[in-house]
């Protein structure tokens, strides 16, 4: 799909007459990338779909507050990732599942999930990632899978680059230890 330049999109979004059309172009251009960012955090397809759609609805409502001082994808990522993190926090606070159950049950849940194509080791890796504290988990996933710059992650999470680098370093160590137990 041919991509539309960020500046052109911003112009479309600024003008009320073309705003909806511009938003649709933006959704088509960035939804898949954002979906995978959300999916790696939220794990299941159904939850990821809900989170992503809510994120775009929020983005539509917040268009007036977007001043064009960052890239559109950075702005959208911030909304989508925060929406995913809010979802995970609510999931943890649900009385039916303890925090331990959520983390230890992820590998089992994934093995039964029709939209998970990995083996048991891959399922356990997802469990290891899910057991990381929130910032470590998020920075690891964004950095490792999306190659996102620390400056962009910093804007997304509202955390300093120094803290993110430290979190990433710790997350990498923990994931390495996870793999070494199978060596």
């Amino acid at each position, binding site marked *: 799909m041919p991509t539309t330049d960020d500046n052109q999109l911003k112009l479309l979004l600024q003008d009320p007459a073309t705003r909806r059309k511009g938003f649709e172009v933006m959704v088509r251009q960035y939804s898949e990338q954002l979906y*995978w960012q959300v999916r790696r955090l939220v794990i299941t397809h159904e939850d990821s*779909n809900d989170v992503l759609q809510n994120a775009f609805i929020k983005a539509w409502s917040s268009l007036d507050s977007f001043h064009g001082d960052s890239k559109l994808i950075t702005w959208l990522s911030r909304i989508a990732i925060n929406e995913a993190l809010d979802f995970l926090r609510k999931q943890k606070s649900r009385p039916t599942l303890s925090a331990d159950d959520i983390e230890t049950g992820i590998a089992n849940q994934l093995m039964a999930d029709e939209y998970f194509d990995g083996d048991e080791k891959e399922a356990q890796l997802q469990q290891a990632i899910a057991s990381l504290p929130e910032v470590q988990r998020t920075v690891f996933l964004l950095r490792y899978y999306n190659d996102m710059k620390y400056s962009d992650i910093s804007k997304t999470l509202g955390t300093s680059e120094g803290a993110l680098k430290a979190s990433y370093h710790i997350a*990498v*160590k923990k994931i390495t230890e996870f*793999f070494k137990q199978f060596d």
Partner: protein
Amino acid sequence: MNYEEDYIKNKMGNRNPFTVPEGYFEQLAGDIMNKIPAQKEQKPALIKRLRPLLYAAACVCIAVFGVVIYQNLDKQANETMKGNFSHHATEYNDSYIDEATDYAMFDNNEIYASLLADM
């Protein structure tokens, strides 16, 4: 750190174990746009709608303020004039009384003498 990252990359690779339903991304944008509310004609902000009323209120306030100030100034001017008059009246009264007192202190012989002096 690079060693550990390389180690993880060797172990994890680039494989994505997550999948999506067939055609999911093709219909995703349509699903999202169906949930976006139709763009309504934007009402002007409340302050813009109230602006004519605010201007009218400001004019009324200025007018009332002006009238009050004018009345106060007028009152002050009147009181100042009364003060002046009463001051002068006092002066006049005082001098009249002084004169009257002086006159009253004349006895009859002195009055006749003064009358004869004038003749």
